[in-house]
């Protein structure tokens, strides 16, 4: 195990994040505040309470999940796509490191960045709504697992993408709709029965539901099912990455 290399990649990627510190912190804080103004104040004044929680507080876990999933995916996909684009990937391929160490470095950094932003949003939300966390350890565990699994998926997208357009394609066409329709801003019990059943095919529902449970103790689906879903998703991504590693798909000739 070449731990020096994993650490080197991790630090190098984190440095990129801190170089654009203002942008990294200001933009999530600003967009979160906007969500609170629009959803919390404008819409929240009509909805009042969802499952015993004020609407403003109810959307906090969904809001964090929305940002964390998109950030983890885009950070990881950009992190590995950029060396491919500028050609510095030659160094990763000729270094005495295994592909799994490369993954650990890039995915670790992308997940850390996403987690960092997720926690900033949580802190920001304390200024807008009254919120308490019922299961803090479970909350951190869900957050970490979500960051890692979406960073893994982002890494796969970065390896697959042949240009910048493809890099944006999956986050834009798949992830954003799934997250918005996955109950970020509503409880699925508010939907008509037929849509409640259809929604259960959306994997993001389980992640948001589980995360929300760690805040309020109530969930759309059972917590066991949520854990199973996130384990399945992480496992799927890992299996795909293992296959890339074995075949050298899109990276090694």
């Amino acid at each position, binding site marked *: 195990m*070449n731990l*020096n*290399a994993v*650490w*080197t*990649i991790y*630090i*190098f990627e984190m*440095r*990129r994040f801190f*170089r654009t510190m203002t942008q990294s912190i200001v933009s999530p804080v600003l967009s979160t505040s906007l969500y609170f103004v629009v959803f919390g104040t404008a819409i929240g004044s009509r909805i009042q309470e969802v499952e015993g929680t004020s609407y403003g507080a109810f959307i906090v876990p969904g809001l964090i999940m929305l940002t964390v999933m998109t950030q983890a995916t885009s950070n990881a996909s950009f992190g590995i796509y*950029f*060396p491919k684009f*500028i*050609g*510095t990937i*030659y*160094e*990763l*391929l*000729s*270094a*005495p*490191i295994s592909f799994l160490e490369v993954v650990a470095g890039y995915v670790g950094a992308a997940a850390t960045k996403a987690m960092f932003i997720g926690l900033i949003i949580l802190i920001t939300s304390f200024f807008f709504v009254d919120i308490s966390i019922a299961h803090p350890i479970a909350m951190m565990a869900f957050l970490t697992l979500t960051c890692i699994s979406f960073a893994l998926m982002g890494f796969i997208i970065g390896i697959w993408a042949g240009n910048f357009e493809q890099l944006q394609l999956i986050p834009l066409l798949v992830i954003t709709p799934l997250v918005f329709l996955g109950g970020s801003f509503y409880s699925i019990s508010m939907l008509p029965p037929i849509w409640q059943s259809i929604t259960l095919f959306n994997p993001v529902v389980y992640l948001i539901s589980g995360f929300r449970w760690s805040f309020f103790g109530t969930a759309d689906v059972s917590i066991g099912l949520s854990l199973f879903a996130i384990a399945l998703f992480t496992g799927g991504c890992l299996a795909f990455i293992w296959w890339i590693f074995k075949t*050298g798909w899109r990276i*090694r*000739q």
Partner: protein
Amino acid sequence: MPAIVSVQNLRKAYAGGFEALKSVNLEIEDGEILALLGPNGAGKTTLISTICGIAVPTSGSITVGGHDTQADFRAARKLIGLVPQEINLEPFETVFNTVSFSRGLFGKPRDDAKVEAILKQLSLHDKKDSKIMMLSGGMKRRVLIAKALAHEPKVLFLDEPTAGVDVELRKDMWDVVADLKSSGVTIILTTHYIEEAEAIADRIGVISKGEILLVQDKASLMAQMGRKQLQIELTQAVDDIPGSLKTYALERAEDGLSLTYSYDTTGERTGITTLLNDLQKAGLHMKDLQTRQSSLEDIFVDLVKETA
């Protein structure tokens, strides 16, 4: 001298079926400078990429320092530094950070003093905090070399180090290579500038169409294959070469004013004295004589032409 890099029956075919390397065998000796010479598309970069791990061999085996590059890739790659042909660098990073990154990637613990020493060696020290995108093309090439040296490799591959580089910088680069050799690094460079191979290499390998045509000591290659030509300029044009001179296989210039005689410098007798005597006997008057040694370029062109 023991071989530090050993390539056995290496074959590399790409997914499209193109066979870039056909059964290549190559032994690179510890401490030497080997120049791989070949036209564009000969397989030079593929050979280097396959040794360094960027491409996977289709069949055959490669060892570096006795370590198989597939089975024991970590030990093998630790010994190798690679300077790619293209200038591939992260534009927004500083020189120091990008060189330090390479060191870490190859598993070495962070060592700022070592990185600074390498930057000094390559006259990059005053640029260490500059962003890569602020550097000139020549400086960027030096950064690539610094990155390749950051983990103190035993073998350095330079893929076309002076492609598109001006004359002054090329000479500069040759000095860097000579310095590295004296510090004990084995250097393999690819080039299609014959002048470059002639100037700095100890041995020369010629590669064409995925095959190594020869690998030989530079001096002996030139001596063995070096032919000399004697050009005889005449005072009066001749329409035909006299019968008494037929054995010399002279070539007559179109205007008939000069004759060219080719001979082997390594032969016991060059035949020059008898030729000159016979010329006089045949009644031809000489105005001037010139000799010309064939260069590595002529040898190279001949070799590649033979296989075409």
